[in-house]
């Protein structure tokens, strides 16, 4: 036991022996080798007693050992339970080992975990599995979210865990819980740089890497193999989560990520699904149908458009403020929307049209009696006043309701004239802050774009292209020389002819 402990404690990340990141890298690799060689039963000795390894080890310092110990415990009671009765009480949410698991996921050392991606992912997936089987997906959300954020604060490198996480959020219907991850946009996919190249660069996972895709790679084990459907599903579910919290603009942006997928002139089912939702969501976000992102494959878009005529008809009616037509269309196509799972969106579209109508009034009027608005909406004035109040408090209208007493008693909806006034108005200071924040984001994004460009320049295809380019240049040069030679020969024969004549 003492041997075991000394081995497990043999690596201390802040020990004075480690002078550089390279040292760290070397030491941790030998350490992992030896730890992984310890057989499972050794970990199980003294379980649930004072000698329990999980009590002795500190998850924030001895992350690797703790992770192995936890996995051993999980393995001992079956890593892939099928029904609730296969899960021992201790691992059920609320049980002591479950608490240990959650504690670990919230406190592990993010640098050490870069080296044992596969084991880390097993813990994550086990957490997910247990919560799902126990029928309380919500229990795992915060643990998985903090684990993801600890490993990669930007969560911008797409992993299979992203998908796991968003599925959990959707099943638990806790959309706001998903936002911290969703708001961090995906800037990279796990890199697949060849090993020799990494060694050449001399960068080790332990280094302070600005871009998380450098330590989350296809080989590091942090993510399962990723295919296009995973990415599409993530964006689609993410968009739906945004819809759940009524953030239409973000939802629209998420869906556009699916539309720009590279395609060999064909669209997939998920793309079609995204396209249909995109039409509706764009109406909600902008009040009109914007153009499809430029980089999308035109043939694929054309195919999807042909399959989404019903949705475009809805969007047309919405844009042109044809309220009765929109309602009629929504009724006629109700089975279409229901089949595609878009009934809620269509209903929202109808509700939103009235909102849009009222908010368009502010372009024309600066003040308008409630009775007039009520006439326009074909509603009694009291209902209208209530409705307008709800719009103002919901942040849809930059206006206030006033009660004027002279000359006659009148309730008035007054729009704020200047964009810097009113509850929705922004002061110059606020705007300045926003500008600064936007600049910061743009700079980060530019760096990420550069990183992506760099990765692209290391791909086989690009190198092949370069090679061909240089070859072409070489042959061009060579052919040029050949031409010169032939011309010289001609000159000589000409001279010969002259010589013959003489």
């Amino acid at each position, binding site marked *: 036991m003492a041997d075991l402990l000394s081995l497990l404690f043999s690596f201390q990340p802040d020990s004075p022996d480690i002078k550089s990141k390279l040292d760290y890298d070397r030491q941790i690799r030998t350490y992992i080798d030896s730890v992984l060689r310890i057989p499972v039963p050794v970990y199980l000795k003294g379980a649930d007693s004072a000698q329990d390894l999980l009590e002795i080890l500190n998850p924030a310092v001895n992350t690797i050992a703790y992770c192995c110990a936890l996995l051993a415990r999980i393995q001992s009671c079956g890593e892939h339970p099928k029904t609730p009765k296969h899960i021992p009480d201790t691992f059920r949410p609320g049980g002591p080992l479950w608490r240990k698991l959650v504690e670990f996921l919230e406190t592990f050392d993010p640098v050490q975990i870069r080296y044992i991606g596969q084991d880390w992912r097993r813990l994550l997936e086990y957490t997910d599995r247990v919560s799902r089987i126990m029928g309380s997906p919500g229990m795992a959300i915060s643990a998985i979210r903090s684990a993801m954020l600890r490993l990669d604060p930007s969560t911008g490198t797409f992993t299979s865990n992203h998908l796991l996480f968003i599925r959990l959020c959707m099943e638990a*219907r806790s959309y706001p819980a998903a936002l911290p991850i969703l708001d961090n946009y995906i800037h990279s996919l796990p890199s697949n740089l060849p090993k020799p190249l990494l060694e050449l660069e001399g960068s080790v996972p332990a280094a302070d890497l600005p871009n998380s895709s450098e330590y989350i790679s296809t080989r590091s084990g942090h993510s399962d193999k990723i295919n296009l459907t995973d990415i599409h599903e993530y964006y689609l579910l993410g968009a739906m989560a945004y819809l759940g919290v009524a953030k239409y603009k973000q939802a629209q942006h998420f869906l556009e990520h699916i539309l720009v997928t590279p395609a060999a002139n064909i669209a997939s089912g*998920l793309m079609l699904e995204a396209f249909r939702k995109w039409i509706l969501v764009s109406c909600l976000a902008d009040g009109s149908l914007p153009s499809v992102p430029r*980089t999308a494959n035109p043939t694929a878009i054309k195919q999807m458009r042909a399959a989404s005529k019903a949705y475009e008809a809805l969007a047309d009616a919405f844009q042109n403020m044809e309220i009765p037509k929109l309602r009629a269309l929504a009724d006629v196509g109700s089975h279409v929307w229901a089949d595609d799972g878009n009934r809620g969106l269509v209903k929202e579209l109808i509700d939103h049209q009235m909102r849009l109508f009222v908010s368009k009034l502010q372009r024309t009027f600066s003040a308008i009696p409630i009775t007039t608005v009520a006439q326009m909406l074909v509603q009694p004035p009291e209902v209208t006043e209530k409705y307008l109040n709800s719009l103002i408090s919901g942040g849809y209208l930059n206006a206030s309701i006033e009660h004027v007493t002279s000359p006659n008693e009148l309730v008035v909806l007054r729009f704020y004239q200047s964009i810097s006034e009113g509850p929705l108005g922004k002061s110059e200071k606020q705007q300045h802050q926003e500008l600064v924040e936007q600049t910061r984001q743009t700079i980060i*994004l530019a760096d990420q774009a550069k990183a992506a460009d760099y990765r692209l320049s290391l791909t086989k295809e690009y190198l092949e292209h370069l090679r061909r380019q240089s070859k072409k240049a070489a042959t061009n040069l060579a052919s040029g020389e050949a031409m010169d030679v032939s011309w010289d020969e001609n000159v000589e024969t000409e001279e010969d002819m002259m010589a013959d004549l003489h």
Partner: protein
Amino acid sequence: MAPNIEQSPYFLARQNLGHVVVRDPPKFDLESYISNYEGRTRLDRLFLIGSTSTYLAVDALRMGVAEAKRGKDTDYYMKIVETLHEVLPDDPMGIPDLGWVDQTNRWVKQENDRLEHELKAYKNNLIKESIRMGNEDMGNFFYSIGNLSEAFKSYFRMREHCTSAKHLSGMTLRLVFISIAQRIWMGAQSHIVKVEAHSLKGEEKARLDPIVSACSGLAHMGLNAYRDAANAFLQTSPTYLTVEPATGIKFQKEVLTGNDVAVYGGLCALASMDRKELQEHVLANNNFRNFLELEPHIRRAISLFCSSKYSACLEVLEAYRTDYLLDVYLAPCLREIYAKIRSKAIVQYFIPFSCVTLDEMAKKFQMTGEGISIEDELIFMINSGILDAKIDLVERLLISPPINPRHAVHTAALTMAENYNHTLRLRLTRLNMLNAGLEVRSPKSSNQGDGQVGGESMLGGTLRRIGTGIGITS
């Protein structure tokens, strides 16, 4: 003048169909008005007045019947007689002279046969000039009996037998003439371009140019392109008034008179030009001055507009609304032209103010008989982006909105940056996918189940899973 003309079933029916019915007496005198015109346009004009103005209906239709009887167009004769009968059932002229109709129809048939026979003979002889003239005769004949489409075809057949530029331009001019008579403005326009393309020289050009520009203005106006129409009319040289008939057509009598040029040109210019342009291109235009002298009130309206007396200008125009509604070419687009002038006047009027009461606006601009309130008109103008203002319905004010350029620029910058960021992210996603070799392919090449769905069966499955499994949106 029977007082019950206004209540006659004919006009009531027209009104129910949404056609224009003019009740006020016009300013012109029918006799002298119609004496300005010759040819078929007299019939057209009389019929329009007869079927629109309750005041002049009977007079115009009676003159129309007499006019039609002088010609050979029996269909038109029957139409006018019928209309007269409907308007005034017991008028003796409302009973068709069937004997004359029969006789004329017989004559028409004989004449048709004769001309066709002659043309056949010419064709056998293969003499180009004779064939051309034969076709021209046919065209003239069809025109006189009112068969405009056949006339057009006959004139068009002259084309391959034309031997000189003069013949060619003459033929094209005839085509223009027929197109205008048929109200086919697009066709008229394209033939006008052809006349111009023949690029005649010297005297011939000087003779045709005024006709061409007047007709081109008319065609543009027919197509509601008022700015082009105004430019064409303004270019028309005053020689148009005295120009001799081209290929036997007196354009200033049979199509539009100098007065018409002045009215059309002036109104189109008012509808499409701003004050500076009006001053430069219309009032200071020596060519057009000659026309404007014929219609002094148009000149007055334009100078009033230029000196910012908008209500006076609109008053002048309103006074002539009845006259213009009875004009063959102006009637279909008069409403639009007047509306344009009106909204321009309102915009110009509002520029120097930050705030005007609606009552004041109503006083200045409320004299149309169309019955829309000034509020509705202003709301429409603001919504369609013509007028930059806001309405306060409580205090009844029209307010010019405050502008905050600094704030606006900041907002614009923020929006732009957001869009830019989003676009960049989209590109990044795409680039990453390309880098990872992810691409949607047709199902054939990817049926190992790596999920790149394209087939119908998988599509359905995906939809169901998303629709029912998560079920957030339903």
